[in-house]
């Protein structure tokens, strides 16, 4: 979120206004009835307001002064009441029936567009914090804000017309009285704008302190921090931070108080006091001294000055809102108009169902201007087993992501069966792979659905296939203890009865996803990091056994599991440093051999004795 506050200044006023019209067009496409009714409603609102302050009372008093019959006045009142009643009925129909239903249509239509887009942009967008921050701002309550944007636009449009009408009416009653209206115009457009500028700068100055307060708040109640809060002095540290932030807020406030006070005084005086008191004295002078104003006119002037001021305030607010909405629409528009670098729906050749070779040819890849993969070449042959090993941060997971075309290489190419993978239909290409990543995400669906993940499996085979996959990953015993077995909903996102499992159990379900899918290439990214030794051993046996016919790639820090691989790639600094079978690499005595020796040392030393003892 840091840095977004500055955006408001960055987009041009013309662009902000254009964005408002973009919003109307977008809303029109999704739900025209919403646009029409919002406009009519705004119009009627101002009409009613002006009518009551400018005509209604004036006509009655004039009639009374002119000595009209009581009956005639009452007929007038009744006609007005009926017309007003009809308008009110219409407005209530809108608020009670049309708008709530239309809102559901807008929500459905707008979010469908947004979801499609967010599914289609490349993964890197989600990892780019600038893109992501703007994108979340665009998504949040997008439907209500889109409608609010349209409303604000109508409000400023009809507000401008209403202000002009108010001017004209006052001019008709008394030419000079119009001059008084300049006062609230100055108050609003000069002093109030200066105040908003101060508010803006002050908020910006306060933001770091407020962020600190919010952070301390979070640390104090999240259970993740609870243990350390009790075991260490970090509580004192957090309290100190909080204290500092409060002082920070006070200091910032002090900096602006005097200036804001002066501006506030002028704002209120110009916007309300001077016009009210001034017009009253002026009106009194005209009626009493120069005798050129009637009582009816005087009363109209008094009620007109109040409504004119408020119409003007409403108009200024609508204008401010217009620019604010322009910024929000900018996020939405930029997102919808974003040109995908790897569109998820990109079409191309059918890759078939067979994998002969996958080849990385001199691939480099930079992530946020930092080279993570550098001139890397490697090959995976169909039906063979490969292990990727290396330090944390050596680029192993990035290779998997490149392989799955989550990213495209900055340089070099990746070839499937001799052809650049960018030429294939992306969805068909990706369906060749089954992948279990380390970071497990569960969907609020049943266990079975979380394993199948929408794969095309005949209904009558589902249960047996899921059961098989869960048994292989080691999650089956746990799943059986759940109240509804395979049909238990996971997470309590929207089922309070939903099951929440431990990290290790979730990891096993993710691994089961890779087991259940029938495809030529399987990838496992540290599938066992959270498992106990027995579970780990069984899992690797199962991976090897079931993937005999598949091409298999896995990442592991447990080098014991690497030995049975057909080929090992040792990665360091984003490139292949050593490659060969376990035996070849051990004989070479390089980095891999050192790593292996360090990990195995304690085990090997003892197995000799253990072997002797057994």
């Amino acid at each position: 979120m840091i840095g977004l506050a500055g955006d408001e200044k960055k987009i041009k006023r013309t662009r902000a206004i254009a964005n408002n019209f973009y919003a109307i067009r977008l809303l029109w496409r999704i739900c025209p009835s919403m646009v029409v009714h919002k406009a009519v409603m705004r119009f009627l609102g101002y009409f009613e307001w002006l009518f009551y302050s400018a005509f209604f009372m004036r006509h009655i008093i004039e009639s009374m002064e002119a000595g009209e019959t009581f009956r005639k006045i009452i007929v007038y009142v009744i006609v007005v009441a009926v017309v007003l009643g009809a308008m009110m009925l219409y407005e209530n129909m809108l608020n009670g029936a049309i708008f709530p239903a239309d809102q559901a249509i807008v929500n459905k239509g707008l979010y469908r567009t947004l979801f499609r887009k967010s599914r289609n942009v490349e993964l890197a967008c989600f990892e780019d914090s600038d893109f992501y921050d703007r994108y979340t701002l665009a998504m949040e309550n997008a439907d209500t804000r889109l409608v609010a944007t349209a409303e604000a636009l109508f409000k400023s449009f009809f507000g401008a017309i209403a202000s002009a009408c108010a001017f004209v009416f006052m001019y008709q009653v008394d030419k000079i009285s119009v001059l008084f209206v300049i006062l609230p115009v100055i108050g609003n457009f000069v002093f109030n704008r200066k105040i908003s500028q101060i508010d803006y700068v002050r908020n910006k100055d306060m933001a770091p302190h407020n962020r600190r307060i919010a952070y301390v708040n979070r640390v104090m109640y999240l259970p993740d921090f609870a243990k350390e809060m009790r075991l260490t002095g970090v509580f004192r540290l957090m309290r100190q931070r909080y204290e500092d932030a409060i002082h920070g807020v006070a200091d910032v406030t002090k900096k602006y108080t005097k200036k804001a006070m002066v501006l506030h005084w002028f704002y209120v005086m110009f916007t309300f006091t001077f016009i009210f008191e001034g017009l009253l004295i002026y009106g009194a002078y005209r009626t009493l001294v120069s005798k050129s104003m009637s009582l009816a006119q005087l009363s109209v002037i008094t009620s007109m000055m109040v409504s004119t001021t408020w119409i003007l305030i409403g108009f200024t607010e609508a204008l401010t809102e217009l620019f604010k909405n322009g910024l929000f629409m900018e996020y939405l528009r930029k997102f919808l108009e974003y040109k995908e670098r790897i569109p998820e729906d990109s079409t191309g050749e059918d890759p078939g169902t067979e994998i002969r070779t996958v080849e990385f040819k001199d691939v480099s890849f930079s992530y946020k201007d930092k080279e993570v993969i550098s001139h890397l070449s490697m090959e995976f042959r169909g039906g063979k087993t490969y292990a990727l090993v290396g330090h944390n941060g050596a680029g192993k997971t990035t290779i998997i992501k490149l392989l799955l075309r989550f990213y495209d290489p900055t340089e070099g190419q990746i070839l499937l069966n001799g052809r650049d993978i960018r030429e294939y239909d992306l969805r068909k290409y990706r369906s060749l792979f089954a992948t279990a990543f380390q970071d497990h995400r569960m969907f609020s669906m049943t266990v079975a659905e979380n394993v199948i993940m929408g794969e095309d499996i005949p209904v009558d085979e589902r249960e047996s296939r899921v059961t098989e996959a869960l048994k292989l990953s080691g999650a089956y015993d746990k799943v059986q203890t759940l109240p509804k077995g395979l049909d238990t909903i996971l997470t309590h996102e929207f089922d309070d009865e939903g099951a929440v499992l431990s990290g290790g159990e979730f990891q096993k379900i993710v691994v089961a996803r890779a087991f259940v899918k029938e495809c030529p290439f399987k990838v496992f990214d540290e599938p066992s990091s959270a498992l106990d030794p027995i579970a780990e051993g069984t899992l690797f046996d199962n991976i090897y056994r079931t993937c005999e016919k598949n091409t298999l790639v896995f990442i592991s820090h447990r080098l014991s599991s690497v030995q049975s691989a057909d080929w090992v790639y040792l990665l360091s600094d984003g490139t292949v440093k050593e490659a060969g079978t376990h035996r070849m690499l051990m004989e070479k005595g390089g980095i891999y051999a050192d790593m292996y020796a360090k990990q195995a040392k304690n085990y090997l030393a003892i197995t000799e004795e253990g072997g002797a003892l057994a």
Partner: protein
Amino acid sequence: MKHVWKNQLYLWRLCFRTCPGFMIYHCYDGFRYQGIIFLEHVLGIRYVLRCAEFGEPFWKPLLVIGIILFINMAQIVPDGFFIHGWTYRSKPKLYKALKEEMFKKAAEIDLSCYDDTEYYNDFVLAVAEAESSIDRFLAMCNRIVQAFTILFTTGVFYLLTDAAGILFVLASFVLRFFVARVLNKLNYRVRLRVNPLERKRNYVSRVFYLNDYAKELRLHPAVGDRLEEEFAEADDAIYREQKKVGIKRSLLGFTRDYVVGDFIMDGLYITYLVFQAAVLHTIPYSDAVVLFNRTGSLRRGMADLADIVPQAQENSLYIDKIRAFLEYEPKIRQDEGEAVPEGNAAITLSHVSFRYREDAEDTLKDISLSVKPGEHVAIVGYNGTGKTTLIKLLMRLYDPTQGEIRFHGGDIREFCPREYRNRFGVVFQDYQMYGASLAENVVMDRVESSEQAPQITDALKRAGFGERLRTLPEGLETQVTTEFDKAGVNFSGGESQKIAISRAFYKNADILIMDEPSSALDPIAEYELNKAMESAAKGKTVFYISHRLSTTRDADRILMLENGRIVEEGTHDSLLVKNGRYARMWHVQAGRYEVG
């Protein structure tokens, strides 16, 4: 109802104690605002209109309006200070007054409270709502004063001018109140039906926009299709619900706003006024104008006053949560108890059993164990057999359900928990990084002087962080996390783990506890850590949990846990000879290295 007001009184006391001047002005502000409106719009306008109607001399309205102008110019001076200075400064202070108490409590409540979902949800709600409940309370105070000011000033004006107007307003108000009640019930029923649908909608949105799920959705596009469908279905269902009640809701709204609202005032009351003014001549025109213009404000005043009760009730619900949270008495009081004797000593567990909840099964069953000072104990076993729980009991984050734990010969429940816990250096699986300097992240407290720097650097070096430390331009002053410092550093999983380990080294405690400290490390880093551990642990009692049996084999004693019991116990060698469960586990893991 009494309870509701007691809760408001509670907040009033808290706020008044913290910022008395601000609170008084805050209430005065409601009076000031409505008072000025009354002065200008009722008294001022009426006086001028009257003068015009009855041809009074010009100096009279000039004087009255002049006085009003002067009052206005004076009262707005403190108003600017109130809005632009006082409020900005005082509100954080009020928030703090409440939250400080909550924070203190949060650090003090038993850890088991976090396991109790209901209690924890209330706790989160209490913290989350602390600020807004003060905001709501302040707004309510202001509105009460405003409503009373309107009712008093305008009410008296009506009584003195023409009391019948009050009847119209009152009739409209009462009728409206009943219609609104029917309408609110209808809306509430709709809400109940729409809520689960919206929850579903929000869930789907979240899945699509959180980057956590982005990868899964690209791997399994079919799941995305299905979620999209569910979203559309939820919207269709909402549409149907809204359509179903549309006509009824519109008509009720029309009745509330028009039939018993505008029609009574703009139709009937105006007829009455015209009749009084034009036919009976009992009311001057000027008064008729002002009376008519003021009906809106009188209606609003009454409605505001009627709204205060439900508002107070709503706020009271949140205050209840806050107070319930603050009134919780922790079972383990951190600063009470005897002093812990100096030096290291044996830790003895006798027949310790523990369950997380009354109705749950025992997580630990009848554990008896005596650990000599300086002994290195490894705890191994399957996932979920109670290893971490045992550690938590040792540090008295929980008390055993049965049995006792003794240190220096005394039951640990007799010691002051804070002092007792200070004897432990711990690395948990789920350690946290804090938005503070690197030094503070090691010390886990305020770092006041630079004298501590050598020890901190030393601890970091011993945890294997030395090389990385040299690459940091700000050194120990480096801000950790980018939470609020753009120049801050987000350390990788392995680096963070090293910082977490350095905390235990820095503390120089008698007893070290390591709960899978190496799970995220690569083989080399793991090796280095183990070497560092060896030197750091000399002469200290160590408890070590790990799935990597190579790191635990040199322990003086290995405890094999299964289903909450110690099933095997002994040195690595003796357990291998025994050829039981530990031996099996060892062979599964070690056997895989034999091939090479």
